[in-house]
């Protein structure tokens, strides 16, 4: 009745995955977003103003991996060499040297002050999407911003999921006084003005990635905890949980091994949407200036630049497009997952 390859996932999971695959746009969106995110983890190899390899005077250098002072290449200072400028110097070309740059030879933090005219500079062959008000390459900043944004949203979704499962699960599993106490706490907690907390803590402890992540995950778990509470309430009365109890299994095993795997539906359906929420809220905070510390490349900061410099539309347009497509892909995935978990197609007669 079952195929050999079905053995290690329950049939329900396989059927759900098949149904997810059938929602074509969700399936492809997952691949596209996944691949782009994976590539963005190696941003340094894609957008960097240091060359992969440099051959100078017969010696081979790997500036992308190591620090070389500019003296090494006939410069005056002990600071890092400006490879871009070096490439144009006459002595460099005389000594039969060459270097290979990454496809986008720009650093997101580097201000290109050698360009003619006032920043922001419009798109050109050198700067595909132009530069921002501080003459930094917009494409490089978008790319690095995407990575930070996605990492932040992923970690936020993960940490709030863990918190939501544990707190909501315990509420459902233990019930009684713990449940009531926690429910009241959640009501008070969710009434806290989140933005003020972020601003306050930001002014006291600075605005680092980790602090922002911690604060936000302290607020994000609440939504999921409601669902987990319900799931655990329902599942703890299932017969197999009763059986596990009568067999003498401990609470830990029952919580994590018997109940949790069966109560993951809300976790998985909500995950893509909390990812979207994470992306949007980080962008919004950055936009308002309460997010990550400048000069961290971020989409929110680019957006606010674009908005205050509407005469340089390439900043706003490129950022809005990037944001739009990312959110669209994530929404497609979320929609596909929801479709796959929809119980309606599971029911049949007799």
């Amino acid at each position, binding site marked *: 009745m079952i195929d050999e390859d079905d*053995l290690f996932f329950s049939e329900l999971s396989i059927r759900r995955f098949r149904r997810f695959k059938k929602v074509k746009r969700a399936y492809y969106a997952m691949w596209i977003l996944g691949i782009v995110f994976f590539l963005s983890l190696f941003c340094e190899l894609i957008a960097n103003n240091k060359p992969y390899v440099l051959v100078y005077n017969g010696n081979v250098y790997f500036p992308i991996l190591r620090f070389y002072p500019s003296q090494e290449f006939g410069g005056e200072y002990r600071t890092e060499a400006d490879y871009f400028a070096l490439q144009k110097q006459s002595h460099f070309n005389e000594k039969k040297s060459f270097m290979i740059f990454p496809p986008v030879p720009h650093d997101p933090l580097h201000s290109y002050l050698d360009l003619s005219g006032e920043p922001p500079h419009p798109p050109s062959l050198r700067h595909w999407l132009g530069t921002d008000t501080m003459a930094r390459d917009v494409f490089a900043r978008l790319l690095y911003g995407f990575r930070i944004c996605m990492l932040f949203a992923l970690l936020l979704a993960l940490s709030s999921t863990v918190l939501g499962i544990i707190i909501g699960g315990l509420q459902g599993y233990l019930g009684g006084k713990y449940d009531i106490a926690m429910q009241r706490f959640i009501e008070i907690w969710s009434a806290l003005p989140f933005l003020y907390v972020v601003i306050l803590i930001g002014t006291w402890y600075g605005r680092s990635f980790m602090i922002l992540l911690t604060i936000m995950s302290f607020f994000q778990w609440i939504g999921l905890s409601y669902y987990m509470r319900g799931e655990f309430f329902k599942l703890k009365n299932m*017969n197999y949980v*009763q059986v596990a109890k009568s067999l*003498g299994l401990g609470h830990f*095993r029952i919580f994590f091994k018997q109940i949790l795997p069966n109560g993951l539906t809300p976790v998985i359906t909500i995950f893509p949407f909390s990812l979207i929420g994470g992306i949007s809220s980080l962008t919004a905070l950055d936009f308002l200036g309460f997010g990550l510390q400048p000069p961290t490349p971020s989409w929110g900061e680019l957006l606010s630049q674009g908005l205050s410099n509407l005469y340089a539309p390439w900043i706003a347009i490129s950022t809005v497009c990037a944001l739009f497509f990312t959110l669209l892909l994530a929404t497609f995935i979320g929609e596909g997952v929801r479709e796959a978990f929809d119980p309606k197609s599971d029911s049949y007669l007799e």
Partner: protein
Amino acid sequence: MNKVLQVRHLKTWFPVTGGVFKRVQHYLKAVDDVSISINESEIIAVVGESGCGKSTLGRSILGLTPVRDGEIVLSGHKLDIKKRASWDPFRKEYQIIFQDPYSSLNPRHTVFEILSEPLLVHKICSKKDVRERVGDLLEKVGLSKDYIDRFPHAFSGGQRQRLGIARVIGLSPRLIICDEIVSALDVSVQAQIIHLLLKLKKEMNLSLMFISHDLSLINTISDAVYVMYLGKIVESGLREEIFNAPRHPYTQSLLKAIPTLDINSPPIILPGEPPSLSHVPAGCSFHSRCPFKQDKCVKEIPPLQGEDFPQVACHFPLERP
């Protein structure tokens, strides 16, 4: 004879709360003053209609439902019923199998995980040998060893109930409480499961406590029968006593209401329905439906007469023919 289980005056009451402050207003007496005992390698049955408290009784005995009062003696050890942990030393030897074969197996665990878990928790065998042991258990309940890595959804109801049996017999229990274990199964498969249990009972010297609403099934397997009505035992006795000459009017009507293949003895109707546990009639709880009701029945609660079998709780028990 060795008593595997003795329950004396067991009470499991569920509080019903109401009002703004959630005060306890009254109790649902699901199990009210019930005493039963099971000898070694004996099969007893508890029968009754839905809501009579028979399932709660089974759960209370194993500490799965908090007990209010009474005495539970397992293998000669009196338990402290207020402490959940007092059941822990007996978890291995006292087992329960539930009615619904679909919900009693975790859908996310393979057969191997389901069967190995109790073996490992109770340290019956080492991690190294557990796979082999699980294979043996499968064969013991009449399933192929090849099923070991499958998920429960691949099995039919009867096969799932076999898995449920395999899970508990791995612990070599002394008593298995079978809570309506065949009522969700088809007739042809039902007989298979009963057969399997009887075979295992002989091999392993098990005691069985059948909780069921199906009197004809109980007639074919049990040694002794307890009849429950609204949380109380109204009659108990050896199988022949109960089935051939019931003394409580309820037992008699219950037996007569069952349709049989014999067209010449049509079912005789007992009027009314069992009242809900929240509205138990005063006096004898059966008086609202009893064909032989007298004034005394409305006023006084009949005590359960008799120390051992047979017992009957009726002011005017039927005469033995």
